[in-house]
């Protein structure tokens, strides 16, 4: 290209800056083309709004029984849309409150595992060598511990406390996160652009912050969307065993537990919480799958 044509090009383009499309914007567009993922996302947004707004709109409270109606089926006349449980508490409100707790546990426990897992894994992977070896053997050792037994033990010793559940679940889930992040870091740290950053005079801390962590983000986002439903399920399981949240607070798992006990007399008290739980888990999994395809690390990394 000679100088005059280049000048002509410059003028034609009027030196306007073109906004580049970052990998995330690209991924977002790919995600929007995936119908299942979009449906999952919509369901989740609706679900979150519903469990927050729902209890406010309802005339009932999740603790106070309606003495006139115990174990009544869903009906518009009584105002109990999902019916009531054995002692007359409104199941709609209880399902919403249960949803709040389940989603909260899912988010917070995942956040705990995210923070521990990413920092642990990134450090192990980046430093490598003996440090990596020791750190990952610790992970293996913790992995070998019987998780349920550990949680049950914690509950028995410290009492049933919702924050303890966050902590216990998060403290177990970070292991997977650490392994994934470590693997990703190992492959990232040998990339030329890390070497280039070092040649540019960047310190190790700057390299981790500017180059390693942003490039981990895609994988981590995908894993988070797949961890949240897993955590919700674990919490439900604990609640089902009677080790989860404490009355009068409730969660989907606890509601399902109550529902199964009244399955023959009041099937609706199982159907609604179980349905909400299943739909949410489906939505998370569809979204996670969609994100994984959209952010496909094989594609660009």
């Amino acid at each position, binding site marked *: 290209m000679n100088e005059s044509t280049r000048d002509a090009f410059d003028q034609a383009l009027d030196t*306007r800056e*073109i906004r*580049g499309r*970052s*990998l995330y914007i690209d991924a977002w567009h790919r995600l929007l083309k995936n119908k299942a993922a979009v449906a999952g996302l919509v369901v989740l947004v609706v679900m979150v709004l519903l469990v927050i707004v729902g209890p406010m709109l309802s005339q009932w409270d999740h603790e106070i029984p309606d003495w006139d109606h115990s174990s009544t089926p869903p009906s518009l006349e009584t105002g109990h849309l999902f019916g009531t449980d054995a002692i007359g508490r409104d199941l709609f409100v209880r399902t919403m409150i249960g949803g709040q707790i389940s989603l909260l546990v899912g988010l917070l426990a995942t956040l705990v595992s995210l923070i521990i897992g990413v920092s642990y894994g990134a450090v192990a992977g980046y430093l490598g060598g003996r440090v990596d070896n020791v750190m990952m053997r610790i992970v293996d050792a913790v992995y070998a511990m019987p998780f349920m037994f550990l949680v049950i033990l914690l509950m028995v010793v410290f009492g049933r406390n919702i924050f303890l559940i966050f902590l216990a679940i998060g403290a177990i889930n970070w292991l997977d996160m650490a392994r994934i992040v470590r693997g990703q870091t190992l492959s990232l740290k040998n990339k030329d652009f890390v070497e*280039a950053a070092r040649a540019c005079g*960047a*310190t190790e801390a700057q390299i981790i912050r*500017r180059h390693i962590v942003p490039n981990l983000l895609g994988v981590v986002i995908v894993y988070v969307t797949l961890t949240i439903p897993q955590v919700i399920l674990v919490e439900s399981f604990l609640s089902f065993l009677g080790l989860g949240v404490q009355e009068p607070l409730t969660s989907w798992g606890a509601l399902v537990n109550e529902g199964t006990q009244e399955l023959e007399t009041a099937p609706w008290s199982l159907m609604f919480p179980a349905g909400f739980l299943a739909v949410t888990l489906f939505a998370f999994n569809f979204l996670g799958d969609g994100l994984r395809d959209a952010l496909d690390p094989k594609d660009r990394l």
Partner: protein
Amino acid sequence: MRSPVLKVRGLEAHFRVDAGSLFRHDYHTIRAVDGVGFDVFPAETLGIVGESGCGKSTLARTLLGLKRPSGGSIEWLGEELVGTREEFLRKKRREIQIIFQDPSGSLDPRMTIGEIVAEPLKTFYPSMSKLQIRERVIGILQLVGLLPDQINRYPHEFSGGQCQRVGIARALVVNPRLVVCDEPVSALDVSIQAQIVNLLKDLQKKLQLSLIFIAHDLSVVRHVSDRVLVMYLGRVMEVADRANIYHAPRHPYTRALIESVPIPDPVRERARARRSLQGDMPSPLDPPSGCVFRTRCPFAIDRCAAEVPRLELLDNGNQVACHRHHELPGEPWPENGADSKETSAP
């Protein structure tokens, strides 16, 4: 006589590898770079050629301090770099920069072109204002032939040649004195190779840069270099001026390399007597005794196995590490010597 900007003497870069099984360690040392020495003068291009795995890239990384040398000395503008603190080396990297082989792999896919080129400025000149950085980045992008409106684009939106231009811009943005080009064109199409090589030559003239140009393609090296260094298995085989290395190569390995360059004329190419090198390069884990090239050298004698040849300075200015360089015929492959123009680069 000009004084060199970079003086390398007896440089060694070794790797320790564990060839043992799960339960037993069996450490070996790979001498990727073994006693390499050369000078680089201001505004000069030193070409470094050799087969894959001969230690070219390790040499480049060692010069930058990205790999710690195991021995020897690197003197930069009169200052010793080997054995100094990391902090000191980091400062020196403003003056010695590198261009990588893989154009897109050396650019962070999550950063815009502007951010990538600005990164060295941010680390070396923390006090620079955003506006100053931006002006400098735009200036350097124009210098390497990119449009300033591409500053917010991402590497995956560029072709290989454009990515390599970004890599060059990143290396030049801090005004280095020496740029190490580690096979900058090997991953590019031939037509793009010519563009990038010529760009480097232009920039060298404009900015009075010294270049170390590493490649395995002799014709490219011939096009850009003032002097050429031939490496084999981590050692220097021959150092000579461009004219001498192509017209009067003295080392058998250099001759074999030059013979391997195809002539872009099918009739003469077919007629040419080809005596290509036999066999593969020996494993660097277990290099041959004496002269490392002797296992593939048609002229090897007993002495070659017994004694490591030193780099000798000849009358014509060539430096050769071969016991028999004076006995060997001067012009063994006349086709190449006589028709040098046609073997030349893009």
